[in-house]
């Protein structure tokens, strides 16, 4: 091989990062494409991870930095795939990078611009529970460490340009088209969270002490919108009772998705443990249907939560969450399936809805552009769920992580390496064919 073979990885979450590092480490040139201004994905938003209770960003950040510094990895953040032609071994891809209006080679991430920016908008990284400026960094550990101008909300007062001592702000920047020749493509676009607003009985968005699980992760995260202090969202009060509702918008409910998101029973237990460690006087209830703790160390983790930390598990799918208009506290009406009684849990300060984790809407567009198939739930289809779990329906394009099917971080990381192996295998085959070697 006279020149380095290139690989395009779409999606800068943990799966995309792992696949990139595996392939870059063995000499391939990797282009890591990410649609937001920073890599890190969902894992960067989490507070802790189950079952180890590792701090999520702590174990993720070194990998993010490695991607940034690796001589074989080029980060293409704030961009998306526009077009792809060709076949395995020889794909021509067109990528469009949105302008940040900040020169990445000059910006030091000092934040002076943001300090003076007059515009505040909800911060997507904090699930819109906190604010950011129109010139911003999504999170303190962003990679690349560079500010971005949200042109939609920017009023072009140019205060940032004035305040930047490095002269990095550049409103003349244009969208950048990047044309690449790659041998294979790996898709690792992750997931979105189902918006349970349509389940009116749960009062999400109307009742402020009801949060979704991802919102709760940001809420308790030390680098989140309230500095990780356990407070009631509605009035900043100190909670004494917190409840989790599982399977919101999944598994045969009228709304949302029919499948099981695989990770919610475990992350609810994790969040319950975070609460119990934070504030031992807060009682925690998890309303579940099936308790899915099937992974390595998971059942033991749940046992610990139940026995050592006193987390209460109630087998039920609650019918209603009702807010007291004066106190903003909540009452959960449910039928306890083991006692067949209708009960209510009163004076609940915070309810976390473990909403279904669903394929991104953008997967449809990606499928159209690449020609790979989606299944009926919107996940990327593979050619054989057993023998070829990471091969998409187009040879040379691989899929891994949650966008292939619901799975947790260890399985996503394993699949990312699997996709890297399949990519290396395919490229070795192409190379052998080119040089006339029999495989």
């Amino acid at each position, binding site marked *: 091989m006279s020149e380095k073979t290139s690989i395009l990885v779409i999606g800068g979450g*943990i799966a995309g990062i*792992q696949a990139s590092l*595996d392939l870059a*480490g*063995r*000499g391939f040139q990797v282009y890591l494409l990410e649609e937001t201004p920073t890599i890190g994905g969902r894992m960067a938003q989490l507070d802790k991870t189950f079952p*180890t209770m*590792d701090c999520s960003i702590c*174990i*993720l950040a070194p990998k993010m*930095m490695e991607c940034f*510094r690796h001589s074989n990895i080029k980060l293409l953040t704030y961009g998306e795939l526009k077009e792809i032609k060709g076949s395995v071994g020889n794909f021509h891809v067109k990528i469009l990078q949105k302008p940040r209006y900040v020169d990445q080679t000059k910006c*030091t991430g*000092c934040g*002076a611009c943001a300090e003076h920016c007059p515009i505040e908008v909800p911060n997507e990284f904090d699930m819109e529970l906190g604010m950011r400026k129109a010139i911003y960094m999504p999170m303190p550990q962003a990679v690349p460490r560079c500010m971005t101008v949200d042109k939609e909300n920017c009023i072009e007062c140019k205060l940032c340009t004035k305040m930047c*001592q*490095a002269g990095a702000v550049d409103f003349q920047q244009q969208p950048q088209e990047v044309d690449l020749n790659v041998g294979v493509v790996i898709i690792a676009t992750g997931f979105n969270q189902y918006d349970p607003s349509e389940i009116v009985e749960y009062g999400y968005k109307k009742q402020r002490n009801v949060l979704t699980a991802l919102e709760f992760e940001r809420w308790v995260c030390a680098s989140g919108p309230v500095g990780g202090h356990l407070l009631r969202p509605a009035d900043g009060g100190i909670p004494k009772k917190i409840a989790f509702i599982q399977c919101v918008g999944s598994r045969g409910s009228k709304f949302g998705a*029919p*499948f*099981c998101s*695989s990770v919610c029973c475990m992350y609810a237990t994790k969040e319950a443990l975070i609460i119990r460690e934070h504030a031992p006087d807060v009682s925690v209830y998890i309303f579940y249907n*099936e308790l*899915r*703790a*099937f*992974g*390595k*160390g*998971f*059942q*033991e983790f749940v046992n610990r939560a139940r026995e050592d930390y006193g987390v209460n598990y109630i087998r039920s799918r609650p019918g209603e969450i009702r807010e007291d208009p004066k106190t903003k506290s909540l009452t959960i009406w449910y039928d306890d*399936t*083991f*006692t*067949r009684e209708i009960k209510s849990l009163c004076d609940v300060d915070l309810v976390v809805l473990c909403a279904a984790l669903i394929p991104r809407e953008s997967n449809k567009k990606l499928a159209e552009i690449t020609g790979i198939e989606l*299944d009926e739930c919107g996940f990327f289809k593979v050619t*054989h*769920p*057993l*023998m070829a*779990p*990471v091969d998409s329906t187009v040879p040379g394009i691989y899929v891994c992580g949650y966008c292939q*099917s*619901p*799975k947790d*971080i*260890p*399985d996503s*990381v*394993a*699949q*990312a*390496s*699997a996709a890297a*192996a*399949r990519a*290396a*295998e395919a490229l*070795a085959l192409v190379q052998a064919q080119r040089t006339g070697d029999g*495989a």
Partner: protein
Amino acid sequence: MIMEQQPKEKARIGVFICHCGINIGGVVNVPHVVKYVKTLPNVTYAEDNMYTCSAEGIDKIKAAIKEHNLNRVVVASCTPRTHEPLFRGACADAGVNPYLFELANIREHCSWVHMREPEKATEKAKDIVRMAVARASFLKAQEESEVAVDPTALVIGGGISGLTSALCLANQGFKVYLVEKEPELGGMLRKIFKLYPTNEEAQRILEASINTVMSHKNINTLTNTSIKSVDGYIGNFEVTALKDSEEKKFKAGTVIIATGAVEFKPVGLFGYDKYDKVLTQVDLERVLQTGKSAMNKFFKPQRVAMIQCVGAREEKPPRAYCSRICCMVAVKNAMLIKEWYPDSAVYILYQDMQTYGKDYEDLHRKARDAGIIFINYAKQTPPEVMPLPDNRLRLTVYHALLGEKRDLDCDLIVLSTPLVQQETAEELSKILKVPLGQDKFFLEAHVKLRPVDFATDGIYVCGTAHGPKDIGESISQAYAVSSRAGGPMANRKVRTEAITAVVDPDRCVGCRMCEKLCPFGAHRIEEGKSTVIDALCKGCGVCAAACLRRAITMRHFTDDQIMAEVKTAFLTEAPKPPKAPTV
């Protein structure tokens, strides 16, 4: 303590203090710090920069190195965790060994946390730079070593995981030794009838895999073979295998454990060993494999009940875990029985249905639609099995959701038991020096981010040897190890960072404390002295701090260097130059 030899040359240190715009300069009086730094011992040159990490700043460092013949560089700016590699690169470009560079953190650890105390922050910045300069005086040039990697993989286990990883590696051009202790390849899959979610026949898939492996020119298959010993380290494993009692020796660059798992036999539970119509799921698979007509001779299932979680999810290890696949196995086999015998009544007695994800939840629903009856039982009130005079069995279960007892007179009871670790795993774990967890499955380097690696480089694990999982998940992991092992083998080498331990054999008395403490097996005792295998040493320094003979030097984090920082952290009198070593 072993004193690092004082660098033969006199240290000529260049110090670059960064303003970082106003981030540092707005709090710390940088010009004052520069003035002070010039008075420090061994400092040849000092300047301040607006942004030392900018292209301009890097150029200035390189220029100063040349102009002032600097042999060490200190930059006082932000955190080394992000910027050390950048400045190391600049030094290397200018001919200064990258390990002769030190970064003093006066931003995250000073200006940013003392924003309202500029005078004190300035004094602290002086102290921080003084510490870095003192440390830099003791820094030594280091060379990173490389270890050659043999592009040969040893795959232990010829089940579907071993077959898949062997094939993937072979296709990438690597040589593979596939070792299987049984006379035939195939492992657990040989015992399985159909696979979920596709309902394909396991034997068909297995045969295709085995044929491809057997005909691949890069794969050397050794059946009836066990592993006797594996010496060496990543890139250079020396393997001794026993094939039909004959020793076979070969070399490998990487080792993959794919030894699988076995089904737990629930002796003493639910009459398993007492009644011939109580089977495990694998027993049932064998019966199903014989086909419908053969099965009719065994029994005519009018009522079949399956009991989940038998011998699993217990109070204490080793079987405290959920075996992940049993619920789906039960659903699959229940649907099969219902398909062959539509008039039969099929029950699944469960605690929690682990039909997770997309396809499995779907099949769970289909099973309910097909008329399979699911009965929830509580862990504290397990079902009971009693014999009936007509050779049937009475299964009594307390239906947890209806709150009533049910008697099911069954022709067949199937117990879903967990996968458990092989008996031979304990020995293999000792041979390879890799750990087993409390559940007895192989314990990976990091449960979240390194699921198929071990802490020891060059050894990997995949499939049910790592923990219960289904075929698709095993194959994913098998591909994963092909990438993890493929990396070092594709590069033909691994680099080791120069932060490794060095043992002085003159001081070492072979007490083995270092060997005991090292989590990576990097210390080997040879002829009564400890030596460090560079390729395995991660540089934590736990051994150095433990060595009572002060025989271990941690390169780049030597006692001298650390002590220099301790001694210069606070000074009340004029700084003295670092003293000459007294050995």
